[in-house]
């Protein structure tokens, strides 16, 4: 095979910690090469080395057979390497074109030549089927579109090799399908791709080969067609992984969360939750299934006190908490794993230990009479770090330095450990590896079995189906139906989420069934 990139025995250290321990990755020309590993295994680090953001302590990098020294991202650009980061790097109030040319603006007679750039952007967009409007403002376009802008940015700079770091983590299923098509298109146009993802099915679908790393060490490279999700998972974790979490039947008792006729508006005063009714009982997991943007975020924020309720009521254990402050909500027995971990979940500039104490720092034994006992916080944090397998060098490491998945595990530990009567988990497994997902699901079920109520919001159908005891389908700000997982399937659920009634869904399914017969 002809290699466009060869990373040989790369070693990267952070202080005493070895994030990459002699890892080798060879990218063939025209190949989609998946990079797989647990949270904190060192995938992003390795890619940052390739992109010139980090300097390796050992090993060598060859591009098209020639040994190179990638001292900064500009060098990477010149070598035709482009990176689509997990967290986009776009200027919100600039247009697509402005964002793309940022850093190497084309000029004509000393003044900026936007229209020529826009033309080139439109052309590239057409060539790769990206469908991006060069004059749209970033703040007005969807996450999926923003990602395409990032892709365009690399193409505009002449990238031949594209690195995607968890591109699908924040996309809707529809957007994921489209992204996969785009990646295939890129390959037919002669590009080569390195893809990081935790979703094994995606790897099976699009990649040619997979390189697996575990705890900073290279485990090996396998050909996708000769492997299976099960094998990949066990290579990566080092043990067998169960995909479907075992759980017994639920025994719900009294109601913990009662939401009545709730109305919530977003920041532009548009009604996002419209007279919504919902209840969750002790001993059950209620999953909220729905397409992103149907009021899930507003519902959760209203329950937890982060957003004003316009009308209706929220009660916990029969006690009214409508429009109470977040602390009062927390103290009445609510735990909350927030949807956006960087916005709400963590103070990134604080040590991870402080973050683990974010909800309890003012209580005994972590503080007394307004004085914080930081030793107690350390001990408390160390307990959670160990119990929830948060891979970090310790409670004093800044939260920012943890890998995405490990940040998430710390948040989950913090919220579950308080043993709340109601645990709200919004996209709790976003960006987690399969082993960690299994672990989190078991924790949620454990809470349920201990007689607590769990409210799960997820965009992943199989997660909702696997974990919930009851599924409430949210559409356009209302719960339009409630189904039992064993009595439905992903297809019906998908139709309900699109706003169809159960009757309509049955009719559509029957029709499709007929079609199949005819064929």
């Amino acid at each position, binding site marked *: 095979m002809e290699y466009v990139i060869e990373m040989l025995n790369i070693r990267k250290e952070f202080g005493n910690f070895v994030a990459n321990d002699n890892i080798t990755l060879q990218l063939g020309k025209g190949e989609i090469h998946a990079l797989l590993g647990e949270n904190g295994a060192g995938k992003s680090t390795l890619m940052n080395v390739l992109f010139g953001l980090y300097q390796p302590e050992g090993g060598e990098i060859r591009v098209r057979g020639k040994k190179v020294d990638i001292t900064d991202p500009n060098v990477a650009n010149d070598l035709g390497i482009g990176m689509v980061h997990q967290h986009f790097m776009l200027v919100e109030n600039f247009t697509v074109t402005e964002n793309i040319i940022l850093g190497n603006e084309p000029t004509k007679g000393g003044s900026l030549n936007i229209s020529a750039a826009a033309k080139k952007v439109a052309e590239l967009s057409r060539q790769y089927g990206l469908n991006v409007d060069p004059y749209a403002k970033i703040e007005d376009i969807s996450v999926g579109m923003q990602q395409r802008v990032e892709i365009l940015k690399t193409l505009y700079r002449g990238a031949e090799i594209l690195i995607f770091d968890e591109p699908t983590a924040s996309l809707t299923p529809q957007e994921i399908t489209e992204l996969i098509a785009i990646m295939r298109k890129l390959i037919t146009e002669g590009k080569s791709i390195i893809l990081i993802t935790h979703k094994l099915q995606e790897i099976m679908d699009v990649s040619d080969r997979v390189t697996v790393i575990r705890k900073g060490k290279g485990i090996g490279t396998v050909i996708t067609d000769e492997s299976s999700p099960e094998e990949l998972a066990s290579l990566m974790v080092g043990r067998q992984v169960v995909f479907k979490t075992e759980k017994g039947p639920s025994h719900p008792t009294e109601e913990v969360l009662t939401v009545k006729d709730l109305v919530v508006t977003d920041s532009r005063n548009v009604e996002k939750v419209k007279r919504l009714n919902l209840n969750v009982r002790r001993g059950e997991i209620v999953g909220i299934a729905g397409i992103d943007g149907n009021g899930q975020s507003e519902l959760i924020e209203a329950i*937890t006190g*982060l957003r004003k309720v316009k009308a209706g009521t929220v009660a916990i254990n029969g006690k009214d908490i409508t429009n109470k*402050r*977040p*602390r009062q909500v*927390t*103290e009445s027995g609510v735990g*909350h794993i*927030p949807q956006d971990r960087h*916005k*709400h*979940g*963590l*103070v*990134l*500039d*604080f040590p991870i230990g*402080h973050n683990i104490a*974010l*909800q309890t*720092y*003012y209580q005994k034994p972590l*503080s007394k009479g*307004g*004085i*914080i006992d930081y030793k107690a916080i350390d001990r408390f944090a160390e307990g959670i770090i160990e119990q929830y397998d948060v891979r970090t060098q310790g409670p004093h490491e800044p939260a920012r330095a943890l890998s995405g998945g490990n940040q998430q595990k710390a948040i989950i530990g913090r919220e579950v450990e308080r043993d709340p009567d109601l645990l709200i988990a919004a996209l709790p497994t976003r960006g987690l590896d399969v082993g960690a997902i299994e672990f989190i699901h078991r924790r949620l079920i454990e809470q349920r079995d201990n007689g607590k109520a769990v409210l799960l919001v997820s965009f992943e159908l199989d997660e909702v189906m696997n974990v919930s005891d009851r599924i409430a389908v949210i559409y356009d700000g209302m719960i339009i139906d409630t189904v039992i997982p064993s009595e439905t399937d992903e297809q019906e659920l998908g139709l309900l989420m699109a706003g169809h009634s159960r009757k309509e869904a049955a009719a559509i399914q029957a029709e499709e069934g007929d079609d199949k017969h005819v064929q």
Partner: protein
Amino acid sequence: MSNRMINILVPVISVILGLLVGAIVMAVSGYDPILGYTALWNGIFGDSYAIGETIRQITPYILAGLAVAFAFRTGLFNIGVEGQLIVGWFAAVYVGAAFDLPKVIHLPLSILAGAAAGALWAFLPGLLKAKMKIHEVIVTIMMNYIALHVVNALIKTWSGGGDKTERILDSASLRSDFLASLTDYSRLHYGIIIALMMVVLMWFLLEKTTMGFELKSVGFNENASEYGGMKIGKNIILAMVISGAFAGLAGAMEGLGTFGNMYTRGGFTGIGFDGIAVALLGANTPLGVIFGAVLFGSLKYGALNMPNAAQIPEEIVQIVIALVIFFVACGYAIRLLLSKISKKKEAK
């Protein structure tokens, strides 16, 4: 090289580099750098009088530096330290002159008046930021001008058209015969002790209390702090008020210690603005602020001796002082250089 080593080495190397470039400037302009620096040295440490005056000069710099640093650490940019200092100065002098009380009450009361005035002056920008999201930089800058002219007007009114306030009573003074006699009758006063106590207070607030935890958290990430149950508006206002109180104390030191009264001013004292540099030099840590203030205070005071003792014009002196501070501020570059050097050594 250990981190600790680097942390100590960097400022030292910076100062030396600054002095070297300053020497070149003096030499090029036709003055003897050795003579110049001798004059600077004598101006700072030459005799007990100089030392006393240097310490006196450092005092308000520490407090102004704390004010800026505290705000920085809690996510705010307080450019209003100058104005808060001016109102603090006036309030302290007013209480010190207008009441006749026993010293144990009068002195603390006057000091508190200064702190309270500064706090009040910072409260408004805090409130505007908390309630209406108006950026504190604009408001605090404007509050500086308001402070300057309001205080000038108050002094005129109070003194019946004059240009200075009454003198404070002895019972409100920070001066002491003991310190004066120790330092050959310099204006050294007890303010330095208050300033150092405030350094400890800032460290304690930020590093030991739940209040400090919240203030820092809100400064870093308002959304996550709200999620964690903190009150955003309250913490923003509180941070500004504490910062303003430090600034007001800096003014009180001038009023109750150095001058004993207050004159109408044509312009700002500059201490509040220098406080920004002091805080940055000290990396916004309480101990660092002491370092920054010592550097600023001694250079500013010692430099006064250079025109007299070495006939170097005021302008050149200012350039030399600015160069030293400039190089210290460039410490980051030096840090980088050091870590490169130590890496190379390790590699061998």
